[in-house]
């Protein structure tokens, strides 16, 4: 059982350069219609570094919360594209913001933000008061811009939440925070999506599609069951933003309608660890989440890895 906790801040950061499907038509054998039909993506953002984007997103979250950087006890940065092999990119973010406490990178590909969020609640359970959780990736750095199967999908961005321990009832008895989670890995699926040092991403899109739908549905179902929550009680489902067709197929199987599902990939593409918090921040900005709402978060990615969590929202 993790202690009750509230989301005091959130914020996102996208690079200024917008790449539309029309732009991609100019240099790849593809079309706007093909990209929209297969992926749901209309445009994506490219540029910056993970440290730049993560710092901006985290600063926005701190400002919204009105929290001083030195009062943060832990920074968890989910990223699969760290700026350098050594040191971890979270050390740069920690330094630039002047944070207190420790900082670490969490690399679980596109499932990274959910893993980091679960670890953040774990940090609260061992005494931290305020934990910054950031998802940030610059996938353009490891994408072959001439490969039409991946160049139209992968993009750059970051988003952050600040969680803070609070008093009162625990999450399973009506209090705010983490009700349940499910984390999993199948390392035998390495060849479906990988990138060697210095190389670019290779993806078996068809098999990823199939496994992604099943992993999302199964993991979300396990998390709901552990929380003793029915899908009808979920106010908002925030899935990993890989492909609209995957999201639609998963939602149909889970029995949750589009009006209760967060989608941002039409404007951002697939930003890996940043995709779930970007969708979450977009939904918050649109007033789609209010205090007391149950939110289901679910991600999947290379590994293959998957992760789901049910949280009771309070700000």
């Amino acid at each position, binding site marked *: 059982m993790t202690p009750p906790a509230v989301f005091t801040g959130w914020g996102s950061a996208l690079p200024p350069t917008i790449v539309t499907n029309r732009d991609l038509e100019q240099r790849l054998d593809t079309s706007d219609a093909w990209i929209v039909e297969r992926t749901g993506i209309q445009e994506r953002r490219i540029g910056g570094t993970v440290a730049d984007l993560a710092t901006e997103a985290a600063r926005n979250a701190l400002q919204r919360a009105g929290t001083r950087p030195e009062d943060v006890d832990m920074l968890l940065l989910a990223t699969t594209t760290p700026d350098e092999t050594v040191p971890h990119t979270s050390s740069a973010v920690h330094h630039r913001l002047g944070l207190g406490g420790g900082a670490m990178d969490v690399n679980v590909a596109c499932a990274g933000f959910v893993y980091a969020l679960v670890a953040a609640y774990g940090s609260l359970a061992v005494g931290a008061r305020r934990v910054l959780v950031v998802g940030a990736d610059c996938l353009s750095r490891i994408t072959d811009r001439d490969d039409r199967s991946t160049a139209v999908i992968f993009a750059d961005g970051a988003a952050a939440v600040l969680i803070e321990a609070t008093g009162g009832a625990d999450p399973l008895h009506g209090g705010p925070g983490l009700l349940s989670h499910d984390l999993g890995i199948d390392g035998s699926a390495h060849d479906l999506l990988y990138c060697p040092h210095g190389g670019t991403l290779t993806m078996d899109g068809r098999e990823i599609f199939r496994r992604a739908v099943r992993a999302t549905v199964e993991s979300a179902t396990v998390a709901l069951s552990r929380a003793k929550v029915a899908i009808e009680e979920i106010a908002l489902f925030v899935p990993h933003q890989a492909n609209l*067709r995957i999201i639609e197929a998963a939602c149909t199987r889970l029995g949750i309608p589009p009006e209760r599902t967060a989608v941002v990939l039409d404007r951002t593409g697939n930003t890996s660890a940043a995709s779930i918090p970007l969708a979450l921040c977009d939904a918050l900005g649109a007033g789609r989440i209010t205090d007391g709402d149950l939110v289901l978060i679910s991600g999947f990615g290379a590994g293959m890895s998957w992760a789901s969590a049910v949280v009771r929202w309070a700000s």
Partner: protein
Amino acid sequence: MSDDATFEKFKSCAVEVLQVPGDKVVRDARFADDLDADSLDLVELVMALEETFDITVDEAELDGIETIGQAFDLIAAKL
């Protein structure tokens, strides 16, 4: 299960997943040309067939599948 009964189950999956009328789901129907189905639709159809018939289809087996008849034969061979 007779071939006819198997085909009826196959057809109901195709109607649901591809959202086409049942009378268009015939052996000669081509996914791309006749049913307006792309490669992801085919993946979704096979996922539904795997669950309906409790079978497993490897991703590589989908290569070259272009018609309803070819997809049905792939499934029927596993029953």
